[in-house]
């Protein structure tokens, strides 16, 4: 069987995985290459204010000329907003805020949460009980509201959003790693490692950790999607990054007043972008879960 046929068969067996991988790969590529893809600087205004996107009929012609490099002036593919900022360039640049925040926050919480969960699962005692109660407490409160309080009072910038989300998401990974550790530690290989005289810490780090990691990695894919929603939600209510940072939530919020008057493009394009992106991460998470459960 050729590699492409094998790939096709795999994609047919796990459609959500395939959809997720495709969307997430595209988003990652856009994130990496947006400075070269964006026709306008995303943070400086152009003289065209609230210019609509080109008519659908004209798009193929314009696209052909753009590819051949025969455009008289760059096109506002998605139109411009009330300040004359090019929406296409901003939609492409936004994942540099949204995705970077979501991934960094999850990296922090996954590393710390897995470590804490591993220790709590391996050494059970009053301290691990206390840690679990604290993480219950953190989880019991609506994440968006705690995020809002932390970010606004610490100062509204990307770094603080990463720290706040990193803190708020840690309990999720603590719980996952702990449950998995508890189930792993009673298995034969742990017993066997003890029998050959390995130290407890070595067993935990070298043998239990790799086995307990899978659920956290699957969860991470879903959580990156949630992280994007949080980042956008925070700036949507005015508690996240500041304008004119290109960020999907800010862009949607900025276009709401236009939208009520029929100027749909400032909100719709970032809305579709975030909608597809988070669906991609949810789909990837679901696909990984199915592969792992088999």
């Amino acid at each position, binding site marked *: 069987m050729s590699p492409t046929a094998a790939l096709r068969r795999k994609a047919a067996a796990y459609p*959500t995985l395939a959809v997720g991988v495709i969307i997430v790969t595209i988003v990652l590529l856009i994130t990496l290459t947006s400075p070269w893809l964006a026709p306008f600087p995303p943070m400086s205004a152009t003289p065209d204010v609230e210019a609509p996107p080109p008519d659908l009929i004209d798009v193929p012609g314009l696209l052909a000329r753009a590819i051949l490099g025969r455009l008289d002036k760059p096109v506002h593919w998605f139109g411009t907003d009330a300040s004359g900022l090019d929406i296409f360039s901003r939609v492409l640049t936004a994942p540099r805020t949204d995705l970077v925040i979501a991934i960094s926050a999850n990296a922090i919480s996954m590393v710390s949460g897995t470590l804490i969960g591993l220790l709590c699962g391996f050494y059970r005692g009053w301290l691990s009980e206390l840690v679990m109660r604290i993480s*219950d*407490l953190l*989880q*019991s*409160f*609506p*994440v*968006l*509201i705690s995020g*809002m*309080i*932390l970010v*606004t*009072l*610490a*100062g509204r910038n990307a770094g603080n959003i990463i720290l706040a989300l990193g803190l708020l998401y840690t309990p999720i990974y603590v719980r996952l790693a702990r449950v998995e550790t508890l189930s792993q530690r009673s298995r034969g290989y742990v017993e066997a490692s003890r029998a050959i005289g390995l130290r407890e810490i070595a067993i935990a780090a070298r043998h239990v950790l790799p086995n307990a990691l899978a659920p956290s990695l699957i969860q991470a894919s879903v959580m990156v*999607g949630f992280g994007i*929603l949080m980042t*956008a*939600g925070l700036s*949507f*209510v*005015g*508690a996240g990054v500041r304008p004119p940072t290109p960020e999907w*939530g800010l862009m*949607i*919020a900025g*276009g*709401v007043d236009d*939208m*009520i*008057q*029929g100027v*749909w493009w400032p*909100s*719709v394009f970032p*809305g579709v972008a*975030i*909608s597809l992106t*988070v*669906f991609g*991460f*949810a*789909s990837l998470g*679901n696909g990984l879960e199915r592969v792992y459960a088999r």
Partner: protein
Amino acid sequence: MGTRFRFVARRIVIGLIQLIGLVLAVFFLIRLMPADPAARLVGMNASPEALAAARHSLGLDRPIAIQLAGYLGFLGEPGLLQGNLGKSWSSGAPIVTEIKQTLPITLELITLSFTGAFLVAFPIGTLCATRPGGWADKGTFVFSLFAGSQPEFWWGVLFIYIFFYLLNVAPPPLGRLDPLGSPPAVVTGFITIDSLLAWNFVALADGLHHLMLPVATKVFVLSGPMIKMIRQNMVRALGSDYILYAESCGLPPRMIARYALRNSLAPALTLIGVLYGYVLGGAVLIETIFSLGGIGQYSVGAVLNFDYPAIQGVVLVITAVSLVVYLALDIAQVLLDPRVAG
């Protein structure tokens, strides 16, 4: 009955400890943050004296232990222990009054959204469970994966564009009632209930009309995870031994479905608990888009204004409400399935 009672009592005690812990944690946490509410109050170009005066009037120049004592009500003035949450730093109004106005709006939104989502998700989830793997099941799966991942603020905005601007069947997203109409007298704060009490059907219709889009948005987003969980519960219930037994006894399908239903009801209650925090967080966004003036929108204002007493009040009330919700769910669960308490 003894174990049941102990179970519930234990939950109440744990919940109260959590509540106290959270109130204290929030009190210290917001004061450890680098934000400066006094500077926010007097503006950018204030003199150092004005800043100091503002700091004094907010009580921020006192040691933090004294501030806590004042907040709790040990310094003569009524505080938390007397049921007083203090005055808002931005509006000057008592926070209890402000929360009394805003909380019912949110509870109304959440209750209607949960009911709506359940009414949508229950038949769909059940239908999918009767034929797992069929085309209806697959289509529903894609829908619930999609809906469950979506940003509700974006769908709220989109619904406004479609149903207000294009189709003109929804009111503008500018509040809970038509500003030109006559609102019902406030009795409970729930506009639906108050207008019924006042026999004011115009206000009732208007209130529901204004809730149409916010509830539709929440139902859309909520139905995703709800369908998924109801389907799983139903599949599990239908595949269990007692259903097999009922079938082999030759009971009619209608009766079997009733048994399965009762047993999948308990997990459905857990579901409300799981989704509750998520829904409350989402209420912040929905209330902001539609200017509903609920506690979610109030908390945004409190946070953005560095209004510490209001932030503390909001955290306290939201936690207390979820405590009551979880407790009610636990009790219902024990009543439905006594094995839980054992």
